[in-house]
C-alpha cells in the first residue's frame, strides 16, 4: 500500500493505517525533533502531536505536493521550532545561547559534522560555500530565526536571508535526484 492510500485509510479512522505510517516514518520524525530539541521527552511530545494531527486532519497532506515523509518532517520541524521558541523553553534557550556566545568561535563545522546525514547529503552540504552552509545549518538544525542567525554570525540580516535562499537553491540540484523515502 502506498503512502497516499495509507493516508486515505487514516482518513477513514483506521488506526492500523496510522500505525503503519508510524512504522515507516516515525523514526525520521523523531530523529529530526530530537536533533532540534536535544531532549528525548520533548521529541516524543512532538512526534505524538504530529501523528495526532495526521489522524485528525489527514487532508492537510497533499500527495501532489511531495512525499508523506517530507510532509511529516516539515510538521515535525515546525512543531519543534515552536517549542524552542515557546515561553517555556525561552530560558533554556537563553542559557544555550549564552553558552555558545561564551565560546568565542561557535563551531559551525562541528555542528555540520554532527549531522547523521548520508554521504550524498553531507557531500552536497560540503560543496556549499561556507557562509551559506553555516546559515542553513543554524537556521534549520539550530531552530534560530534568520535574525538570530545574523546575530550569531555577525552578518546583516538581509545577507543571511539571501544566503539561505541561495544555498537552498544550490542544494536542489545535487539533492533533487535523491528523492525522499516515499515507501521507506
Amino acid at each position, binding site marked *: 500500500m502506498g503512502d497516499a492510500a495509507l493516508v486515505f485509510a487514516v482518513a477513514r479512522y483506521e*488506526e492500523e493505517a496510522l500505525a503503519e505510517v508510524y512504522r515507516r516514518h*516515525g*523514526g525520521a520524525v523523531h530523529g529530526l525533533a530530537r536533533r532540534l530539541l536535544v531532549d528525548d521527552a520533548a521529541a516524543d511530545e512532538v512526534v505524538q502531536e504530529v501523528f495526532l494531527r495526521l489522524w485528525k486532519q489527514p487532508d492537510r497532506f497533499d500527495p501532489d505536493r511531495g512525499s508523506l515523509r517530507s510532509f511529516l*518532517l516539515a510538521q515535525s520541524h515546525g512543531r519543534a521550532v515552536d517549542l524552542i521558541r515557546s515561553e517555556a523553553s525561552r530560558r533554556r534557550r537563553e542559557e544555550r545561547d549564552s553558552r555558545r556566545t561564551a565560546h568565542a568561535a561557535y563551531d559551525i563545522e562541528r555542528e555540520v559534522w554532527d549531522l547523521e546525514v548520508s554521504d550524498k*547529503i553531507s557531500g552536497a552540504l560540503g560543496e556549499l560555500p561556507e557562509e551559506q552552509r553555516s546559515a542553513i545549518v543554524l537556521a534549520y538544525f539550530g531552530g534560530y530565526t534568520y535574525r538570530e542567525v545574523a546575530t550569531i554570525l555577525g552578518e546583516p540580516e*538581509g545577507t543571511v*536571508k539571501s544566503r*539561505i535562499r*541561495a544555498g537552498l537553491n544550490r542544494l536542489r540540484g545535487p539533492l533533487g535526484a535523491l528523492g525522499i523515502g516515499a515507501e521507506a
Partner: protein
Amino acid sequence: MSDLQMSHEDLRELLGVYALDAVEPDEALAVEAHLAECPQCRAEVEEHRSVASLLGNVGAAAPIGLWDQIAASLDDDPVAPFGAGVSGGADHGEVADHVLSFPAGGRDVRAARRRPRAAVILTAMAAACFLVVGVAGVVTIRQQQDRVDDLAAQVASTRDDTSAAQALADPSSSLVSLTSSVDDIEVRAVIGADGTGYLLGAPLPETGADATYQLWGLNGTRAVSLGLLGSDPRVFQFHIEDPVTGLAITAEQAGGADQPTTDPLVTGVIPANGEDATLPS
C-alpha cells in the same frame, strides 16, 4: 519590524528562511498571505521544503513505546464517522448498485399505493430524524476544507472513495445541502466542476425492498432523474448533463419514476461556482 507593505521581491527573499521555519511570526503571516495568491512562490517554497526535508531525513528507528502513547491519545478524539449506521445501524452494503437502470412506464397501476407508502416513509423519517440530528450535532459544519476529513470517513464505504474525496478537496466544487421543510434532516452532495457529483451517505430511513429513493436535478419546474439511490442510500455518484439549479430526493416505487410522484423529502440549491451552500447549524 516588517509589516504588510513588503514588495513582491521582499517576500521572495523570505521564501528560503520561511521554508526553514526561520522567520518571525509577523513575517510568516505576510508570506502565507502572499503564498495563497502566488503559485510561483508557492512552488519555490515547496522546493525549499523538500530540500530541507532531505537534510532533516535522519535515518532512525521509530521509538517502540511511543506508539502506545499515540494510540492511547487517539481514543480521546470524539469525532465519529458521520453517516455510518444512521439509518438503523446495520450495514446493508451497496444497495444502489443494482438499481441504476431507469426503466420507463409500467408502474402506473401501482400509483394508488404510492401515497400511503410515502406517508409511511415520512413518518419513519420523522421518527428517525431525532437520531439523525443527534449524529449531525457531533460535526460542526462550516468550511468545506474543515469538513474534508469527516466527509472522507463518510465516503469510505464505496469504490468511489478517491474521486469523491478529490471532489471534496477541490475548491472549485460546489457543496450542496439538501434539507427538508418539515424535518431537520440534511443530505449533502458535492458537485465537481465537470458535473460529476457525489451524494454523501444520505441519512434517510430505509424504505424497504419495494421502494427506492430517487435523486432529481431541478431546473425551474423541470425535474431530471439523476439516478436511483436504492432503499438505504450510501455514497452515490451521479452526473449532471443539463443545467440544473437544485437537487431533490423523492421516495418512489422500486424501479423509479420518470417524474417525481411524491413530494420531495429534501431539496437543495446548487450554489454558484465553488461557493458553499449556506448550511443550517
